[in-house]
């Protein structure tokens, strides 16, 4: 078996996602890691108006975006840019 395909439960990292949207009523993190589920990763509003979530992600590269009041929003501070399966521009993050 190719070892690259073996899931490694210990290879998880805590990652900070911050979305600066002080006027928003809700912000959710969506990405490959949650099958772009709009409900599974709600972010928490901070006193300064930014929204924060610190999920654990597997080692590797992940596509993600923020849903700001239901609108798919690209992270302006993202490490990279690509498209998701719906051909929408989304962000890239490396977890190592």
């Amino acid at each position, binding site marked *: 078996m*190719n070892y*690259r395909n073996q899931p*490694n439960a210990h290879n998880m990292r805590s990652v900070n996602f911050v979305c600066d949207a002080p006027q928003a009523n809700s912000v959710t993190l969506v990405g490959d890691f949650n099958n772009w589920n709009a409900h599974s990763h709600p972010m928490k509003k901070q006193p300064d108006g930014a929204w924060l979530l610190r999920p654990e992600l597997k080692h590797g*590269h992940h596509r993600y975006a923020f849903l700001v009041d239901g609108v798919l929003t690209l992270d302006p501070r993202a*490490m990279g*840019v*690509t498209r998701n399966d719906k051909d929408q521009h989304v962000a890239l993050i490396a977890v190592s």
Partner: protein
Amino acid sequence: MSASRKVPAPQPLRTSNAAVGKIHPVVIYPFHQTKSYEDLHQLYELVSTLAETSSIYARPITVMDRKTYNANAKSKPFLKFRANVIEPSSDILDAWCVDTCQMWYSGLGMAYERGGPNDVYWLIPGDFNYGSTVGHEVLSHLHDLPEICVELQQDVCIGEIAADHNNPKQLIDTYGTFALLYHWFPSEGREIREYTERPRSEFFAMRHSFLGEMLNRRWFAYEQTVVTLLHAVFDKKHISRFMVGHISDLPEGRESISSAMQQVDRTERVLKAIWRERHQSQPDWNKRYRMLEAKSDEVRRTAMTILENLLT
């Protein structure tokens, strides 16, 4: 080697695809040999690590222009570096090349012939200041480019170097490259800018099938990244951009007006050639071409006026 910093060891790739190929690193050796080998030592420390990780990486290739070799054939440090550092960690391809992009063509072509359908090819330019603190940061991020191609099934991943808006290369891209792209290929130019501000980046990785398509098209001796991105957009390929850090070319210094002029001229020449290739089967294409060409002249002159003001 002085102040050597440890290069991170490659980690297993994350992919859901059972058919995982190899990553082929292709190093483009600097055309002009610098006196200090510190930057190259840092680079080849990474290359050596890749060579030792044969489960993930194919044997690296170093492309060296024969003119570079001939100019340094009597230099003991050069011959020692080649024999003791480059050769143990990579196969050297000595080639006569008219320009850097032909070195890419030779190296990527050789790697492609060794590769297979699931493989990914990783271009690593040698003429960067890898020995600096920021250069080391770049070295630690470069591996992300081929990994993104593998893990996320991307056809091409461009590495972007962050630079402030007054950086000479950024100015040339803003006022020259993009101005001409918007003129000759407006929608494709906009699409490319959705991904990157540096469409002439020398850091990239490509999937086997897309590289095969590109190798079999006309390959330009310069500005080939722009050409690759255009074809990626034309053919609706999967494109990614990833930040690899902050870095400057060696030798350090400002771009001369002459160099900027040459870069803008080359971009225009390449874009004209591609436009003709894509439209010459259409009726009255030459009439449209002449109109575009006349306006392109204005765009290029305006770009040069701006760059003269900013770079002098």
